[in-house]
C-alpha cells in the first residue's frame, strides 16, 4: 500500500463532507477514496446531486472536507490553512470551468501568461511556451483576441492552455464541454486528454456527458455521495459511453 501510494499524484482516503440543513445532516461526499496517477486522465460522473461537484471542489482545495485525507504530491490538503491552499491552487493545480473561464479584459495569451505571472515565473521562456501551447491548441491566430472575440470552444482551449502552462501536478475540469456543441466538445476533450497524457499530469474531469468519457483512462461513478463503480478497462468505458448510463 505504502509503495503504491508513491505512484499517485493524487490520492484521497475516506473523504467525507457533510452539510447541516433544515432537514438534517446531508452527506454530500461519503467515504470516497480514490487515486489518480501522473499522466492519467479520469472522469468523475454521476447524476445531479451525486456529490461529484462537491468532490471536485474538495480536490481543488476550494472546500475543506469534514474528514479524510487528500494527498497531492504527498501534501495533505485537509490540513492546510487558507493561505496554503491559495498557494497550492496557484502552483500545483490547473483549472477549467464550465463558463466564465477567462479574465475578460486579458487577451488569450495574457490569460495563459497570468498563471506564470501569479507564480512569478513569467520570463522569456514562459512567454514562448504560452505562445507555443496556444498554437498547438489551434489558436495561433487568436493569441491577441479578447475572450469576447472568441467562440466558446476557443475560450475553452485557452482555459486548457492556462490550466497546463505552469506545469501543475493536478488538472481539474468542471463540465468543460457544457457550453459547446458536440463536435467542438469532442475536439476540446480529445486535446485536453492528449496534453494530460503527454505532459504527465493527473487529470480529473467532471462531466454529465458520458460520450466525453471516450478519451479518459478511467471513469469514477458516484451516486448519493459514494464512489459506486470504477470503469477501468477500455471495454467497460466504451460500454458506458455507448450505453449512455450514469
Amino acid at each position: 500500500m505504502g509503495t503504491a501510494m508513491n505512484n499517485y499524484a493524487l490520492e484521497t482516503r475516506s473523504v467525507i463532507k457533510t452539510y447541516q440543513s433544515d432537514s438534517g445532516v446531508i452527506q454530500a461526499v461519503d467515504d470516497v477514496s480514490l487515486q489518480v496517477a501522473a499522466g492519467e486522465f479520469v472522469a468523475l460522473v454521476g447524476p445531479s446531486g451525486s456529490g461529484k461537484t462537491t468532490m471536485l471542489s474538495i480536490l481543488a482545495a476550494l472546500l475543506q472536507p469534514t474528514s479524510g485525507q487528500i494527498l497531492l504530491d504527498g501534501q495533505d490538503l485537509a490540513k492546510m490553512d487558507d493561505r496554503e491552499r491559495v498557494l497550492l491552487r496557484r502552483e500545483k493545480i490547473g483549472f477549467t470551468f464550465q463558463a466564465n473561464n477567462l479574465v475578460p479584459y486579458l487577451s488569450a495569451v495574457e490569460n495563459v501568461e497570468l498563471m506564470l505571472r501569479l507564480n512569478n515565473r513569467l520570463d522569456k521562456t514562459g512567454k514562448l511556451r504560452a505562445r507555443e501551447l496556444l498554437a498547438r491548441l489551434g489558436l495561433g491566430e487568436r493569441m491577441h483576441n479578447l475572450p469576447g472575440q472568441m467562440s466558446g470552444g476557443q475560450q475553452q482551449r485557452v482555459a486548457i492552455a492556462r490550466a497546463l502552462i505552469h506545469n501543475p501536478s493536478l488538472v481539474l475540469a468542471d463540465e468543460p464541454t457544457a457550453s459547446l456543441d458536440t463536435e467542438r466538445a469532442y475536439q476540446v476533450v480529445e486535446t485536453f486528454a492528449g496534453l494530460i497524457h503527454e505532459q504527465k499530469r493527473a487529470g480529473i474531469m467532471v462531466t454529465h456527458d458520458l460520450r466525453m468519457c471516450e478519451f479518459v483512462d478511467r471513469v469514477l461513478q458516484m451516486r448519493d455521495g459514494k464512489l459506486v463503480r470504477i470503469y477501468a478497462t477500455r471495454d467497460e468505458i466504451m460500454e458506458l459511453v455507448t450505453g449512455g448510463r450514469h
Partner: protein
Amino acid sequence: MVQTLSIAGYLAVKEVWRNRGRFLLVSLVIALITLLVLFIAALGEGLGNGNREYISKLNAELIVYQAKSDYLIAASRLGRDRLAAVRRVEGVADAGMLGTSSANLVLPGNVPALKVALLGVEPGHTGEPPVVEGRQLVTGLAQEVLIDSNTAYRSKLKVGDSVTLRVTQGTKDEFYELRIVGITAGQQYSLQPSIFAPFFTWDRIRPKSEAEVNISNPIANVILVKLEDGAQVDVVSQRLVQQVNNVETATLNTAIQALPGYSAQQSTLNTQGGFTLFIGILVIGGFFQIQILQKVAQIGVLKAIGTANHIVAAASVIQIVVITVIGVAIGALLSFLFSLTFPPTVPIVFNGTTSALAVVALLLIGPLGGLVSIRYAVRIEPLKALGLSS
C-alpha cells in the same frame, strides 16, 4: 509586496485600458465633481477674501471696540479720547483709528459710479495699508487718498489722478474731489474695493445723517492696536479692557468671524462643498459596487486559480485611485482653464492651500467610495461565484 503590487497593478491597468470608455465616463463624472468642489472652494475663498481682506492684512494684533458692540465694526463708536488712552496702555506699540463707510466713486463718461468702501485711517499709524505704488498718506487733513488695486483695476485710475466721491450728507448729495497719492495691494472691505482717506478728511467727507452734518467731533468705529510683543495678546487685551473706559477687544481672527455674514457665508459654502464631496463618494461607491457585482464570476475564477485576496483588493484600490486621479486631474485642469476666463471682479479666488485641500479631499473620495466594493470583492467565495456550492 512588490510582487503583489506588480500583479495587482497589471490587472487593474489592463482592465481600465480595455474598458477605457466606461472608466473614462466615471473619470469625467469625477472631473465634474472636482470642477464643482474647486469652484465652491474658490467662491468661498473669493467671497471670504472680499469680506476680510483689509482686516486680515492689518499689521495689528488687536481691535478695540466700543463695549457691547458684539465685535461689529459698524456698530462700534469710539472717540479720540479713547485713542489716547489706548496708546498709553503698557505693551501697545501703536494704535490708529479706523472709520468705515461707503461712497460712490464717480467715473468719467457714462460709466456707472463705483461703490467703494471709504475707510478713514491715521497716516503713519496702524491701519494705513502700505502702498505698492506712489507714497503713503502724509497728514490727517490732506485732500488725498490711497486706492487699493481693485479700485484701480475697476476705475482705471492712477497715482496723481483726481477722484470725485459722491456721498449723502443729511439729505443732499455732496461731491468731494481728492487726489490719489498711492495704490495699495488688494484691500477689499465688505466685498467692496477700498479707498483710504486721512482720518479727519474721512470724517469730513463720509456719509452723515442730518444731525451729524455740523458736528465736528470725529468719531471712529474701532481702534487698531499693534503690540510691542505679539505673544502678549491676552495680557494686553486684559489691560486695555481694564484701563480704557467702556471698550472690548478682539483678535483679528475673532473680528473676521464677526464680520456681518462672514461665518454664515463660509459655513454655507463649506456645507455645499462637503455635500458635493459626499455625492462624489456615493457616485464612485455606486459605480464600483455595480462593477464588482458584474464581475463576481470573474473574481471567483481569479481566486480559484490562486490569486490571493490581497491582490484582488490591491487591484481594486489601484483601479479606483487611477480613475480618481485621472478625474481630479481633468477637473483641476478644467477649473484652471475656466478661471482664466473670469475677470478679477468675480469673487473667485483659487488659493493654493484651499485648492490643495480640496484636491486631497477629492483624491480621498475615490478610495472611500470604493471601500464597500473592495470589501465585497475580498469576500467573494470562489465556490459560490463559480456555481460550485451546493
